[in-house]
């Protein structure tokens, strides 16, 4: 597939651009933060987005989706990234939804996915247990008890964990704490006895939670996919979510850069626009190159998902490493070039810096991705 947009894709992009700009500009995130909104995003807006088909773009038609590809989903998420949209694409579509889609049986898919597509159900992935992404490091035990399992342990940084209707819980059914084997996925109702989610307020004003499992009793039917073999499907879920997250980051990077360029042209010091200073020009030129390279790899990775290429994992690592570094660079340069006004809460550019750092750490930072890439290549 080509690295340029088709006419249909351009149309979708335009629709998304207009809708998001109109309905969910950055001011929306600020309002959610300042009103201490208990949900952290707008359920109504999410349903509207779902009605536009966005929640189900990559879900097969049988389960209520549009059966389109990641190339399309990426365009929508990128526009959301430009406006720091808080609605649950990452948690529900990319992580939770994909876990059900890739690991679930027909019953589970039919039960969950239509509601995901309609925007009525939030599904979160409960994975991380320490302060960093380390997907096979699973200590949360699921002990076999009779015909079911009993789960105890704690998960951190569960995106949208406190408002999720269901959780996909990554648990250990056998093996040692960092073994790839012995991991099993469970589909859990958030209101089940023994589940307690506590919201954790993050600097980027996006949703995350700690979820505590205290002897949660589960039926065997709660298992998603194969017992002890969850890592394989988890890898695929994480690749998809990582690439989707990169599309979001790309949008944020592009927007932060464009706002900075605008400021460089407007702000006058020493009687001239500050964008006429060569040192700033050269830094802007280097940022431009970084963004163009980031765009190329994100587009390629999205297309590789649609074509189910074996290189998907390596492309996911490359895309995330590059987007993490680029968002870091541009987030910081945006602040620096905005000068004092850039560190005020009143100016919106700071929201991009905050999102940049959280997104950088989400699903593994650049160092993690480079390490994984080398491991995938065997060196």
């Amino acid at each position, binding site marked *: 597939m080509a690295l340029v947009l088709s006419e249909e894709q351009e149309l979708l992009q335009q629709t998304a651009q207009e809708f998001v700009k109109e309905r969910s500009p950055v001011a929306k995130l600020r309002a959610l933060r300042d009103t201490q909104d208990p949900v952290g995003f707008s359920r109504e807006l999410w349903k509207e987005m779902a009605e536009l088909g966005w929640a189900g773009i990559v879900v097969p038609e049988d389960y209520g989706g549009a059966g389109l590809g990641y190339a399309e989903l990426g365009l929508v998420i990128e526009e959301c990234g430009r406006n720091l949209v808080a609605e649950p694409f990452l948690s529900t579509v990319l992580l939770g939804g994909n876990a059900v889609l890739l690991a679930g049986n027909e019953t589970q898919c039919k039960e969950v996915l239509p509601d995901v597509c309609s925007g009525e159900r939030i599904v979160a992935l409960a994975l*991380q247990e*320490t*302060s*960093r992404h380390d997907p096979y490091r699973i200590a949360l035990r699921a002990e076999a008890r009779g015909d079911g399992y009993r789960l105890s342990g704690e998960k*951190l*940084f569960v995106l949208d964990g406190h408002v999720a209707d269901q959780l996909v819980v990554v648990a250990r059914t056998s093996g040692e704490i960092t073994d790839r084997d012995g991991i099993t996925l469970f589909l859990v109702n958030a209101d089940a006895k023994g589940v307690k989610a*506590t*919201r*954790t*307020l*993050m*600097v*980027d*004003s996006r949703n*995350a939670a*700690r979820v505590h499992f205290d002897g949660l009793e589960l039926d065997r039917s709660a298992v998603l996919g194969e017992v002890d073999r969850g890592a394989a499907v988890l890898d695929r879920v994480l690749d998809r979510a990582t690439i989707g997250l990169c599309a979001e980051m790309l949008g944020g990077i592009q927007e932060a850069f464009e706002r900075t360029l605008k400021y460089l042209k407007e702000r*006058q*010091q*020493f*009687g001239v626009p*500050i964008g006429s*200073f060569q*040192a*700033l020009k050269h830094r802007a030129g280097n940022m431009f190159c970084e963004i163009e390279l980031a765009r190329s790899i994100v587009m390629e990775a999205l297309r590789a998902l649609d074509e189910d290429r074996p290189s998907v994992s390596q492309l996911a690592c490359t895309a995330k490493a590059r987007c993490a570094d680029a968002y870091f660079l541009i987030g*910081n340069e945006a*602040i*620096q070039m905005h*000068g*004092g006004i*850039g*560190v*005020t*809460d*009143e100016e919106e550019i*700071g929201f991009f*810096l*905050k999102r940049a*750092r*959280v997104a950088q*750490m*989400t699903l593994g*930072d650049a*160092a993690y991705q*480079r*390490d994984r890439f080398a491991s995938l290549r065997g060196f």
Partner: protein
Amino acid sequence: MPDLETFREEVREWIEENCPPSKRGPDRDREEVWGGRNAVYKNPDSKLWLDRMAARGWTAPTWPKEYAGGGLSAEEAKILRQELRRAGCRMPLVSFGLLMLGPVLLEFASEGQKQEHLPKIVRGEIRWCQGYSEPGAGSDLASLQMRAVLDGDEYVVSGQKIWTSYADKSDWMFCLVRTDPDAPKRDGISFLLIDMASPGVSTTPIKLISGSSPFCQAFVENVRVPKKNLVGKVNGGWTIAKRLLQHERLMISDAGLGLTGPPRSLEGLARKYLACPEGPLPDPALRDRLVQHMMDDECFKLTLQRSAEAAKAGQGLGAASSMFKLYGTEMNMRKYELMVSLLGTQALGWEGEGFTPDEIAIAREWLRSKGNSLEGGTSEIQLNIIAKRVLGLPD
């Protein structure tokens, strides 16, 4: 001059007798004293310690005794610093008057102005703030617009200042104003002292990305200021302004002020958050960054030390304050990015449950550090100064 070792003995004894035990050791409860008309003393011992130090003039050890200073020589002042540090004594007073205004008053002010203002600074009676930047005059400070028009024996001052730290808590402001709008921009600026209690002065705090902040906007509307409050020559304020900026840069690059946050053991954080109580750290990329920071920090500290020694030996490093402002703040920002990487998502909490107070503090300090390379002259301005003044590169 008495023998220096005798002096050291005296100082040591005096400290033993006079510094309250509660004013020694790390300042865990943030009890620092800023003085002023509305001074706050969380701990009554703080006032005691300030008053005792001020009585000897040791809040301003090298200022002349006639202005209530300590009258110490450079060598004696060094001994005083050493002994205070040795005994773990905290600073009795944190003050822009001491660190920024005082030195330029000593250099540029009239005898009357010195008599009027310096003793109050020494004793922490008046708290000062700095009225420099304006919304349209940041890096290009000399384009400032606040007007001061002479009307009889008073200036009538109008305009707006921004980034005025603690303006809402200060008693007086030292301020750059435009006294000649027709002159080339650097030649029409004067250095004026304004009583914040004057009618027409108001302030509003500025909220930063890290949350609330000490910065304010200060609005000055038709405020009448006595002519005698002008320091130096009319329209000669730019020279004073630049000298004061040098003192500010040194203050910022000095770990004590301006840079955010208490010292923390990065190695300790690494061990805790990488869950590695001993032996080699399991993440080689983070380990490498940790070492880089430790090395940078060591080299920077040695350069501060070398600069101080060179200054004493008459072998100046040249524009050192710009280098220290630049490197010190950039390094501090890198340090916080490293800390965030070490703590992972636990460093990205804003408030509430799920994070320790120190984790929240690190997140806020990390965001606050983004201002380091902007306040007190941006990194770009420091690079311009180094290129011009030290390296002699042409305009």
